[in-house]
């Protein structure tokens, strides 16, 4: 999903001054891309909704700190990605699971050849989904992902390679590598 949202400077200025209508306008402009990012990374719609809410709570509370450097979407997206990754880390800590574990699969789901890409993507581990989405779709560098995840650049690169290898297997593609 490509986001090319241009937000008028005057709207941002009003939001920074605490204007509630302007803050709501920002929410309406970015709620779908934020939810989409969260939903692609999180395992359930409920978790993605919580990330959406937590993201905008932070946005409305700290919009004054946005200095206008770079696109506003980049600033909001970073908050959303951080919230999503924090939630994944917390959930894994609670479940005492390593971050890069492959999921066990969902009840009733058949993993095999010829499933579509969207379903195959859902079968990746939380960490693999995060890395693939942030790198391949949102355009984050491995350095940025490593910083967001508190991991090394090589961790991000190896996660991306493992994820693509698994996607290829799930999609029944390729014979080597």
């Amino acid at each position, binding site marked *: 999903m490509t986001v090319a949202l241009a937000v008028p400077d005057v709207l941002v200025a009003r939001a920074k001054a605490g204007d509630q209508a302007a803050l709501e306008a920002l929410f309406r402009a970015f709620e779908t891309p934020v939810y989409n990012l969260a939903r692609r990374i999180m395992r359930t719609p409920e978790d*993605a909704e919580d990330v959406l809410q937590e993201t905008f709570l932070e946005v409305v509370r700290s919009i004054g700190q946005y200095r206008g450097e770079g696109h506003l979407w980049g600033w909001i997206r970073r908050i959303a990605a951080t919230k999503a990754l924090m939630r994944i880390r917390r959930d894994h800590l609670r479940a005492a699971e390593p971050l890069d574990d492959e999921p066990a699969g969902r009840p009733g789901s058949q993993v095999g050849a010829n499933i579509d890409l969207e379903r195959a*993507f859902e079968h990746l581990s939380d960490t693999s989904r995060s890395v693939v989405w942030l790198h391949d779709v949102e355009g984050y560098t491995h350095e940025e992902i490593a910083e967001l995840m508190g991991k090394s650049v090589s961790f991000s690169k190896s996660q991306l390679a493992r994820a693509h290898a698994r996607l290829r297997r799930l999609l029944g593609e390729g014979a080597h*590598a």
Partner: protein
Amino acid sequence: MMHCTMDDLLALRAGEASVWARKHIETCAACRAELDALYQRVAQLKALPALRPPRDRWPVVREALRGDRARRRRTWGAWGGSLAAAAALAGVLLVRPNHAALHAELAQAKEQSATLEDALQRYDVDGRVLSGRAAALVADLEDRIAVIDGALTLGGGRTDAPAQDAQLVKLWQQRVDLMQRLVTVRVTRARYVGL
């Protein structure tokens, strides 16, 4: 025959591949097909439809924002109340009559503001439902109070000149006026809910 690994393919895509991988991809049709498939997968991921939130989460965010503002107001109220006593004492001690009068007015406005904050807290019970019109009015008044609080933050610490004091008194009096209107809206709503 040795083929490209997924690491090699990703490195090729990023323009960071080894010399061996760059040479190999030129001669190996299978690896070129793998690289094409990688590009296609990524293009398909980018083309997935946007998923939209099933429920509107703005009301929750808005209420949290109002809660923040209410807490800030209460902080200001407490700050104003405690400073009111200090300002009153300062007013007594000051020699210049004009300055003393301003400080007395300032102390009075702050005391009124603190009293209204207390009144507001009594009526501002969570969980009560506002009509749309009342909610809009409350939001507008809260926004205007927030603007005044912002101005007080900027100028509140500088009370060394009569002109600045006069401006401070004016701001506090405006705040009292808005607080009175806010309390009136809340009281009206409370009576309405109580029917």
